């Protein structure tokens, strides 16, 4: 079986935002819809403090609560582990949004232009055809890129090579090897979702 997954090395991540912007450009998500995020926060007290960055997106959980709660069958999990939303079936009830512990989903209120005064740009005109108001959206692991044998856009652009994508079920894949090393962790393991995105920790400062 194939189970697509990703390892994000927080020791390499520089919080530059390239992943988030590449996602915007690749998927043409409308204003207010961010499939890929980089949460910048801090820990500790001065001077033993540091800035932290956590890139997040849909975790494509093995046990995805969004799939379970969806009343119409719009959210499904493919055999390769990718969780997708069928916009035609989505009724916008937002149950999935509440069920997702990772805040990965966004309800598309309306599709508006970024530069509202001037209307849709040619880019938006073309790209917003892939989106629909009144439905829930989230990261698809760039499913059409995968179909072409490419990595997701966030992986391809990452200047720090912090992201590795591949088949978690294939022991020869880079992602499987990284997970097998035992240093990775998943977000909110207590939720029992078994996410397909794993993280390598940032190195702790000595001071």
């Amino acid at each position, binding site marked *: 079986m194939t189970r697509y997954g990703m390892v994000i090395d927080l*020791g*390499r991540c*520089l*919080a*530059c*935002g*390239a992943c*988030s*912007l*590449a996602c*915007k*450009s*690749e998927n043409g998500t409308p*204003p*207010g819809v*961010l499939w890929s*995020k*980089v949460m*910048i*926060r*801090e820990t500790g*007290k*001065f001077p033993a*403090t*540091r*800035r932290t960055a956590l890139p997040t997106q849909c975790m494509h959980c093995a046990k995805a609560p969004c799939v379970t709660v969806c009343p119409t069958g*719009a959210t*499904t*999990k*493919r055999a390769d582990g990718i969780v*997708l*939303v*069928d*916009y*035609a079936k989505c009724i916008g009830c937002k149950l999935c949004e509440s069920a997702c512990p990772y805040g990965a989903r966004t309800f598309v209120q309306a*599709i508006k232009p*970024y*530069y509202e005064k*001037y*209307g*849709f*740009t*040619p*880019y938006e*005109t*073309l790209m917003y*055809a*892939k989106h629909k108001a009144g439905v829930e959206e989230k990261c*698809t692991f760039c*499913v*059409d890129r995968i179909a072409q044998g490419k990595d997701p856009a966030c992986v*391809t*652009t990452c*200047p*720090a*090579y*912090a992201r590795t994508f591949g088949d978690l079920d294939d022991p020869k894949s880079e992602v499987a090897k990284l997970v097998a090393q035992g240093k990775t962790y998943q977000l909110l393991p207590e939720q029992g979702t078994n996410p397909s995105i794993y993280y390598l920790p940032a*190195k702790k*400062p000595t*001071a």
Partner: protein
Amino acid sequence: MSEQSLLPRLSRRQFLKTSAVATALAALGDSLLGGPMATLTEGAAKEAPASDVWIPTVCVLCDEGCGLLAHQVDGVVVKVEGNPAQPANKGRICGRSNGWPLILYNPYRAKAPLKRTNTDKGLGVDPKWQEISWDEAMTTVATKVKEAMKKDPHTLYLHNGHRAARSNLMWGSFASATKTVNKLGSVNWCTGGTLHTLSFHMNGVTVADPEMEYSKYHIDVGGRFLGAKGTPFLNRQFAEAKDRGIKVVSLCPIVSPNSPNPDEWLPIKPGTDAAFHLAVANVMLNELNRYDAEFIKWRTNGPYLIGPDGLYVRAGGPKVKDPMRLNAEYGPPLVWDTDAKAARPYNDASVKNVALEGTFTVNGVTCKPSFQMLKDHVKKYTPEMAEKTTDIPAATIRRIAGELLDAAQIGKTITIDGVTLPYRPASVGFSKAYSGSRGFQTHLSARIVNLLLGNYQAPGGFASTSQPEMKPNPADGLLDVSKMTRAHEFYGEHATWPSEKADNSSAWPGVYNTNGITWYAIDDPKKYNLRHPPAVYGFTGANMLGNSTNPTFIAGVMKKIPFIFGICLQLDDVAEMCDVVLPDHSYFEKFYLEGVGDPHTYGTVDFLMQPVVPQPVFPGTRDGNEIVIDLAERCGLLFGKGGLNERLNSSYGLKDKLALDLNKRYTFEDIMDRRLKAAHGEAFGLEYFKKAGYHVLEEGGIAERFGVAMFSKARIPLYWEYMVYWREQLRKDLAGIKAKFGVDVRRPSNEAALNYMQPLPDLQPRPEFDAPAEFDLYCVHYKTMLHSMATFMDNAWINEHTLNNDPYSMRVMIHTATAAQKGIKTGDPIWVEGRFGKTKGEAMVTELTRPDTVAIAGLFGASSTNIWPPAREGPHMNYLCSGEEEYRDPITGNVMNGAKVKVYKA
């Protein structure tokens, strides 16, 4: 399963029939300015062929030059990815590059020629633009330029932006053709003054920085590891260094986003870095007695004997012309030969051992090796003294000095590709960390620590970022930089008065950052003895109100200029001061050539920037280069001797059949084709580049990369003796002017400027921090990777990402305890007020800054009334700063970049 959830890629015509968006589009009226955008609805009626292509081009959003592939579907750019062929970015791109589609299609761009109808000018004053024809716009501008040239060409003030914004290659030659001396560069905030000057003299190159591929230990000064740009190349090197286990110590008043996950943070007091560096040097020299002695002896002027006048003690006998001292003739500097116990010329091949320490008498003159002078000089910088100044504990300073030396592994070598090199994988400070009103001496103090580590041009050390090209100066053996591009810095001209140039740059030893003084001279022509007040200010790619100190003041000065025009991509702050705006193509609609260094071989690759859309997005725009060619013709500056064509033949090396006929007008595309063929050969013209995207101009190897092949015999100044020489030259010049005209050309006084010209650096008090007690906090400025320049404020994707993900960068960072004292909470609107102005922003209460320091990122807070409105949000550091000479580095002209402020709720 549910793959159908993603709508299939439709052809353009299918899409227009089915999409709800198309309906919305049809409802759109014409855009306010420039008529309708070239939208799909407009194109739908035409039978344009369907297309799906990837077009190679190059990014110019910063000076890195990343290779791009633009994905164009049916004439619309839908995605930009990195070009794997580019050696620096290897197919990766940063967040800003990913934002290209919004830059190209930004409907707030300048879309048609405009003239203002509001005679009132000022920051935030709507010019009330009126669209005019190209002919009217060009006639108006040409008439004003011709009038000015007829009266006095020096009243033309022509401003060229930073390289990253300077795609209008014709502008510089046009400015030269007018013969004005008042050609301005957009380098007000730039670190260039110190960065380039020190890099020329110490690495033989425009930019030298810590070499990260082999580094094991780095002190990141000012949180500038990623150069505030986060380019793919820097990010990759940083990440790989982290993997190797590099130790990074961040020396910065805040935890900087450009120094991610440092192993140790040293929250230094703003403006005191020189004390830290000199204390580290003191520990190495006077406590541990550890440094790279062989390097100091044979690769620097450390053993050169210095007399009581601060100058070299030289041998008599045959004299040699010194190109760095107006070709005056000198004997060679002397060193002390410890075997012969006598002074010998530095280049005497019989000398096998030289003294670095001691006091000697040569020909009756008491002298010391310059190394001994350094050792004595830094004695006062005890770690205890530095602790009081910097707030970094003395024990930490001692530990850091030891760690640096251990990591530098003095004496070790490494063999790379068969070339054996010194291996010193430890360094202090990226070059771009040192700006500010005393940046030169601060930077030099860090350079001294690097010299003691012997890390110059060494793997893991401090190395050039492109091929060094320097040879030894025959007169003293040091790097001869007199032939370099900016050779006039430190040598080459005497101070003149009254000066033709508005900024009086001849009275400065370095001129890179003096341009900004021009505005003060225009404001008070009597004080500055301004000879040629501006009749016309013209600019391209230079937002003086976005990237300059005190925008309120500069806008006030601009109001006094009779006519202003700009070749503008955006209707930004400075565009609003224009009488006429000439709308430029975006970088994705025009040609440009970017020479990019291969960071691994230091060869050079030329990358072509080319149009990636079939026609301009806004039909009312023109390529800025075509605008300049047209303007040159209308002003009588295109043809004949001294015209634009002749200048292009000269600067691009166009000869024989490639040469431009001096009396014929060419398209910019044709000129580019000739330029490429001249540089790369007949087969590598524009057609070749359009398809391939790039061509290797020069191959390089490891010897070129570390400069072994280029200047192994040239020495590096440990002691800046020619600073003493040029100080005395300048002293004479300034005294002569004062005797004749009764004025101090320099401010606050000639003496203050001259005293700063030291051969060895000191901690210098920063005038910007010498403020009344009511200004109780420091304010520092930092850049973020996504907002490295003003041009990113109005990219809606970048703006949205920042607002959603980064709670710091569009706000004012203030420490928890300080905020509590002042009753400020996160999200509160606050004023940050200094002596020169104030700026408003939301507070972000944090532990990531010193309690006495607030921090503002940038750039935000545009003033333009015609820019995308969210770009006007956020605090703007520049309002807190002055560009007056008193607040500039007296050598280089770098402006103040911190302030003392008070903070209160708005």
